[in-house]
């Protein structure tokens, strides 16, 4: 009897996990182009967190980009606690997977197209992008600045000669 209960429990857990994570993520283009079709439905959306994490009381706005478009995610502030890096020139943002209700024109947020997150988990850590100085650009800058300086001097000399 006990064995059957454990087996059934494990089966339910496995089924739940499959339901949660085996669903395919939808791209931003798919969501925007077929917004009416997805309106009010639970979707999975993946991407990089970009810009600011904007705290609004018990909630926060997180903008997540899948490389084509960025979509606003409205999430409980506890869900975004783990986000460390957000995408900018200097850093690659954390990659997250969001599961939540998609809104074509959100009633709560003045008609914005957004996703209200039920689950938000970090799939990849972001990183500070170490930028090495581009030596070719550095050389080019020095040569061109030297050339500009030379033209400036020649131009001044011509002016002095003309006035003199």
């Amino acid at each position: 009897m006990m064995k059957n209960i454990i087996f059934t429990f494990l089966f339910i857990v496995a089924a739940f996990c499959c339901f949660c994570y085996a669903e395919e993520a939808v791209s931003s283009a798919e969501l925007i182009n077929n917004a009416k079709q997805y309106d009010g439905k639970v979707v999975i959306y993946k991407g990089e967190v970009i810009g600011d994490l904007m705290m609004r009381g018990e909630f926060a706005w997180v903008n997540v980009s899948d490389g084509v478009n960025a979509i606003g995610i409205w999430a409980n502030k506890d869900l975004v606690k783990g986000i460390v890096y957000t995408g900018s020139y200097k850093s690659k943002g954390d990659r997250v997977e969001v599961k939540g209700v998609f809104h074509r024109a959100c009633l709560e947020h003045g008609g914005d197209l957004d996703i209200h997150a039920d689950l938000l988990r970090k799939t990849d850590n972001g990183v500070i992008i170490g930028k090495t100085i581009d030596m070719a650009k550095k050389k080019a800058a020095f040569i061109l600045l030297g050339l500009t300086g030379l033209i400036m001097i020649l131009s001044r000399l011509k002016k002095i000669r003309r006035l003199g």
Partner: protein
Amino acid sequence: MILRPGINDIKNISYYLGKIIIGLGLTMIIPVIIGLFSQEINPSLDFLISAAITLSIGMILTWASRAKEDLDWMQGMIVVSLSWLAAMLLGALPLYLSGHWKSYLDACFEAMSIFTTTGLVLVQDLDHLSLAHNLWRHLGNFIGGQGIAIVALSFFVKGTSGAFKMYVGEGRDERLLPNVINTARFIWLISIVYLILGTLSLGITGISIGMKPMNAFFHGACIFMAGFDTAGFAPQSQSLLYYHSFLFEIITAAIMVFGILNFNLHYQVWFGKRKEIWKNIETRMFFISLTGLFLIAAIGLDKLGVYPKAVMLFRKGFFQLISGHTTTGYMTVYARQFINEWGNLAMVGLICAMAIGGCSCSTSGGIKILRIGIFLKALKQDIKRIILPERAAVSQMLHHIKDIFLEDRQVRSVLLITLLYIGLYITGAVMGMWFGYPFLDSLFESTSAAANTGLTCGITDAGMPAALKITYMFQMWAGRLEFMSVFVLIGFFIAEIKGR
């Protein structure tokens, strides 16, 4: 018989063009400083390289061709049209070097969009663009909004009648002060005062909605420059959707409206003539046009049930209409939503708003409200002529800063420019259809480019045909300069080839 331009014409043009290019090169130093300050070394190098090339070209031009005379009308117009092309080609250099644009053509497209304050973009991965490059995009809006030639001349030239010709060549003909250089400087003063106020209000709002303080003020400055100069550029790919804030949208809408008001009107209000706001034909026409076109768009949106609540319809519909009418191009919906959800009627309302545009002698594009006002007054006058007895003297007056009697000469000029704009809108739409885009999409994008708006329904993309990119670039250029300078340049080249 066509006369071939003489060597003095070319020398004069080269000299003033060189001065303007030097001015452009010097402005590239600002992103270098910002880049170094924020430890963005490679972007700073991009701007150093570009500044060096730009300054060298400018100095060689002024060096090789010393001007002996003031500019005449033809030379002034050519200097203006060439300076915008030079700004595009040279302003695109730092963009291309950043690696965020797929080709030099794309960088030129973006540079033309920046300086003409259009707002159509081809940037890749904008969310990871450096502060220096982002600043350049918005600073370019600020410079282009005032007028490239007049900006350079207000710093390099002391009182010249040639400056007035360039001022007119950049699509403006109203002098606030007797001296055009002082007029340009006053325009700068107005813009900088508003820049400080606008940046502060947007920055504080940014902090209140959860942005980091430095980011909030940087975004505030960028959004102000692009909003006041009706460019519609934004530091993030989501445009204004990034902020998720109604307050931010309201402040931006107010900035856009300030941006489309005639600088002459700003001048009158600054010096106490507040009643001018209510009496001026442009502000009256703008209110009527905005209300009428919003009603059309709202009926269209309501019929399709795009927004289930009236508040939502107002927030999205009215903002997009103001954004279109002011020719700014900020978006609070995604590009494809216009096509997929908004429907034909709302789209037509938006296209009409973009086509009409803002006030004359402002930073906005499009046909201009003053011209629509004059056209309607002329129509009223003609109807009166038909109704009243033949012997009755019919005159029509309009109030624009002062009371003006309508003359046939003004109506002719208004109709000519209006027809040219309509022709430009149609040409771009035909080109769009040529490349297989549907009619309404093509007309929307073409009107947006030619009226220097920047709203997009999704056609503008790095993958679109090169010929269409060049078409939109030409539309942005011709639309911003209000045709005359462009025609004079074409005439100059014809005279150079065929003249004796």
